[in-house]
C-alpha cells in the first residue's frame, strides 16, 4: 500500500476569518446567565399569579431593601472570584464598618465623618487581605478565614454587649426612603451607579480583560504583562470598600450598630454569585448573571415566606436550586453528545489477543 496519491498543488488559499462561530442570538440566549434570568422571570410570574400579596409594590420595596447588601457585595466578589480567589471576610467587614460607624457616632463625631472613616477601615481590611494574598503569597481562602475571625472579633470587641442606636434621622430615613411614589427604595441609585462602574470595569476595560486572563491562566497573564498582584490587590481593596459601604447601609437600615451584624452573609453572597454562573475556579462569569442570581434567591425567599413556607424549606430550595443550576447545564451538554454519538456501539471491545 505504497501508492502515492498526488493531489494537484493548490495555491495557499486566503483564509476568511469570521468574528464568531455562532450567531449573535445563540451567543446571547444560550448562556448560563440567560438561563438564570429566564428562571427569575418565570419565578416572578408564577409567584405573582399564585401567591397572595406577592404582586403588591411593597414586595418590591422589601425585596430591594433586603437584598441590597448582598447585591452590593456581589459586585466585587464576582470580580474576585473570576480571578480564582475568594473573600470570605466580607460579612465581617460589614460588621466592623457598622461598629466603627456606631462607636464614632456615639463618641460625638458627625455621622458623615464616622461613615467615611468606616469606609476607610473597610478599605484597610481589604488591603490586609490583598497584601497577604498577593505579597505574602498565601491562599485567599485561608487568609480570609483568618480575617473573617479577625474583623468580626474586632467588631464584637469594640462594642461588647452594647448596640449603638442613635443615628441622625436624616440618614436613617434616607436609607429607607423611596423614589417618589414608585415604592422603589432610594438605595437602588447608589447600587446602580456601582453596577455600571463594575460592569464597565469587568467587561469593557483592559483591567477587566486582565481579570479574566488571571482566572483562566495566572501564568500566561503574568507573561502577558498583566500585573497579577496589583490586580488582585485592587480587587480585595474594592471588596473591603464596598462591604464597608454595605455595612453603613445595614447600620442605617436597622438603625443599630452591632458586632454581629450580617453574620454568615458571606455564604449567601457566594451562593448567589455562583448561582449567577461565576466559576469558583475563576475565569468565567458575568455580572448580569450574578445580579439575576442574587435576585432569584431574594425573590424565592420572599415568595416562599409569603406562602408561609418556613425558613428551613427555603434553605432546601435554595440549595437544590444551586445544585440543579449547575447540573442541568452539563446534563444538557451530555444529552447533546449522546444524540450525536454513534448508535448502539458496545462500550469496550478490546481485543486482548497476544
Amino acid at each position, binding site marked *: 500500500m505504497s501508492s*502515492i496519491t498526488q493531489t494537484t498543488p493548490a495555491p495557499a488559499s486566503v483564509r476568511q476569518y469570521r468574528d464568531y462561530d455562532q450567531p449573535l442570538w445563540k451567543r446571547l440566549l444560550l448562556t448560563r446567565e440567560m438561563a438564570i434570568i429566564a428562571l427569575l422571570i418565570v419565578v416572578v410570574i408564577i409567584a405573582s399569579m399564585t401567591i397572595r400579596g406577592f404582586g403588591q409594590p411593597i414586595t418590591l420595596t422589601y425585596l430591594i431593601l433586603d437584598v441590597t447588601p448582598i447585591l452590593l457585595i456581589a459586585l466585587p466578589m464576582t470580580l474576585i472570584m473570576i480571578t480564582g480567589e475568594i473573600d470570605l471576610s466580607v460579612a465581617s467587614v460589614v460588621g466592623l464598618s457598622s461598629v466603627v460607624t456606631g462607636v464614632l457616632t456615639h463618641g460625638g463625631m458627625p455621622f458623615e465623618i464616622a461613615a467615611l472613616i468606616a469606609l476607610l477601615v473597610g478599605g484597610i481590611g481589604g488591603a490586609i487581605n490583598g497584601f497577604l494574598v498577593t505579597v505574602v503569597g498565601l491562599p485567599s481562602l485561608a487568609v480570609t478565614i483568618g480575617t473573617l475571625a479577625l474583623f468580626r472579633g474586632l467588631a464584637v470587641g469594640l462594642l461588647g454587649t452594647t448596640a449603638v442606636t442613635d443615628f441622625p434621622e436624616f440618614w436613617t430615613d434616607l436609607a429607607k426612603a423611596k423614589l417618589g411614589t414608585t415604592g422603589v427604595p432610594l438605595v437602588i441609585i447608589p447600587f446602580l451607579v456601582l453596577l455600571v462602574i463594575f460592569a464597565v470595569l469587568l467587561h469593557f476595560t483592559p483591567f477587566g480583560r486582565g481579570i*479574566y486572563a488571571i482566572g483562566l491562566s495566572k501564568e500566561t497573564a503574568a507573561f502577558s504583562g498583566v500585573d497579577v498582584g496589583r490586580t488582585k490587590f485592587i480587587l480585595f481593596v474594592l471588596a473591603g470598600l464596598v462591604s464597608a459601604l454595605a455595612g453603613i447601609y445595614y447600620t442605617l437600615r436597622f438603625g443599630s450598630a452591632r458586632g454581629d451584624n450580617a453574620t454568615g452573609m458571606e455564604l449567601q453572597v457566594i451562593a448567589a454569585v455562583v448561582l449567577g454562573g461565576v466559576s469558583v475556579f475563576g475565569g468565567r462569569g458575568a455580572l448580569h448573571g450574578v445580579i439575576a442570581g442574587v435576585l432569584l434567591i431574594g425573590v424565592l425567599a420572599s415568595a416562599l415566606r409569603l406562602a408561609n413556607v418556613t425558613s428551613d424549606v427555603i434553605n432546601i430550595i435554595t440549595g437544590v436550586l444551586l445544585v440543579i443550576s449547575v447540573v442541568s447545564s452539563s446534563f444538557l451538554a451530555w444529552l447533546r453528545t449522546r444524540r450525536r454519538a454513534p448508535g448502539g456501539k458496545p462500550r469496550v471491545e478490546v481485543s486482548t489477543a497476544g
Partner: protein
Amino acid sequence: MTIPPGAADPAPALELRDIRKSFGSVVALRSGTIEVDAGSIHALVGENGAGKSTLVKIVAGLYRRDAGVFRLEGAEVDFTSTADSKAAGIAVIYQEPTLFPDLSVTENVFMGRQPVGRFGRIDRKAMRAEVDGLFQRLGVRIDPDRPADGLSIADQQVIEIAKAISLDAKVLIMDEPTAALSGVEVDRLFQIARSLRDEGRAIVFISHRFDEVFDLCDTVTVMRDGAYISTSRIADTNVDEIVRQMVGRDVTELFPKQETTIGDPLLEVEGLTSAGIFHDITLTVRSGEIVGLAGLVGAGRSEVARAIFGVDHYQSGTVRLNGKPVPAKSPTAAMRLGLALVPEDRRKQGLVLDSSVSRNTTLAIREQLAKFGIITSGFENRAARVWASRLEVKTNALSTVAGTLSGGNQQKVVLGKWLATEPTVLIIDEPTRGIDVGTKAEVHRLLSELAGQGMGILMISSELPEVLGMADRVLVMREGRITAEIDRADATSENVMFAATHAEEQHS
C-alpha cells in the same frame, strides 16, 4: 513479544482506515488512514492542523471516532478511555507533556501502575530502582525525587518519553517528541526507538523535522486537511516530494536570512545572576540583529529570558533597553519599554487556553487597543484578524477557543500576540516548536523582515540548523553560564556543540 524474523504476519500491528472525527462544526479528520507494521518505525507528517494529533488521540482512547475502521493486530477495537488503550498495549507520548506538577518525577512515571507489595503498599524501592535504570538508559539527568513542577518543557518531554518506554508497549506512538529537544537527547531517543523496533514493536513517529524523519523512519504517511494523502517507503521518496504532498505547493527557502545593517545596541544585559540557575550573564542585542542563544536542554536559557523580561527574580545584574534600565520583576514595565517575550511553554505561559483566539491575540496589547479606557470585542476582533491572516492561523472563527487549535496553530497565535505589541526587542524562546515546514519558512521570513526593519531579536533555539541559519551571532550557554560567543561567519555545528557540552572551553 519478539516477532520471529521472516514469519508471515499479514495483520498490521495498528490499522486505521477512513477515520472520521468532528468537533461540533469543525471536521478534524475526514479520512484518517495509517497502517503500521510490527518491527517498523512509521512517520506521520502533515501541516499544522492536518489531524495528526487527533488521530493519535483516537488510538489512545481519548476521543471516539465518528466513523471508520480501527484494528489492532487484525482485531477491531473501540476504546472508550485511555485505560483501554493502555490495556491493549498502546503507549502514547502526547504532543503536549501532561505531568502532575505536584508529584515527584518517579511517581509521574509510574502513576496508576506502581509496583505494590503487601496490603497494596507501594514498593518505593522497586519503583526508584526502575526509574534509575530507565533514566540511565535515556541519559536523563533529572532528580527523580523532585516534583515535576518547574521542569523545563524539554525535561517534561524526556519524562514523557521515559514513561512511555517503561510501559513496554506493543505500539508506541510519539507525537512530536523531539520538538523541544536538542541534538544529544534526540540521538538517545533514536537509539532507543531503533532498539524497540528491533524487538518487534510498532512505532509511530510524528515530527515536523524532516532530517529526523529520514534518519529514523522506515515508512512515511502524509496527511493534509484531515485526509490521507499517501504512504511511501522512506527509501523511495525525498524531502521535496513529501513537502509538496503535505503543503500542496513548493516551499520557499527555509532560512531566508536577509542581510541587514546592524545598528546601535538595544538590549544590554550585564552580570545577570540568579543563584542556582544562571550566573554572570552579559549580552547585547543590537538593532537589526538576530542573536541566537544555543545550548543543551536545561542550560538555563529560558530562565535568562524570563529574568530579562521581568517574570523571574534575579539577584544581581542590570538590564537596559535603549539605554533605559528595565526594572526587575515587572513584565508590564518591560513591555512598555518595548520588550516582548514569546515563552517556550505555549500552553502554560503563552496562551489562555480557555479563551478565544481573538482575546489571546490581543491580551498583550489590550491597553493600546482601548479608547478612553474602554475596550470592546469589536476592537479585539479587528486587531486579531490582522495577525491571524498574516500567520495563517487555521481556524474558522476568531471566537474559537485557543485550546482546541492544533499545536502549531497555537504557536502561531502566541507569535501573533507578541508581534502585535510591535516590540523594539523580541526575545523568542523556541520560535518554531511544533510548526510545520511551510509556516516555519514564513516565521523565519517574518523574523528576518522584522530584523531588517531594525528590531533586535534574541532567539533561543534548540534546533541547531535554525540557529546557524538565522543568527547573526551565536551565544552558547552551558550550565547557567555563557561559554561562547561565535559570529555568524565562524559558527558551525561543531563549535557550537563543543561550547555547549565542554566546560573547559572559554571563548571571549
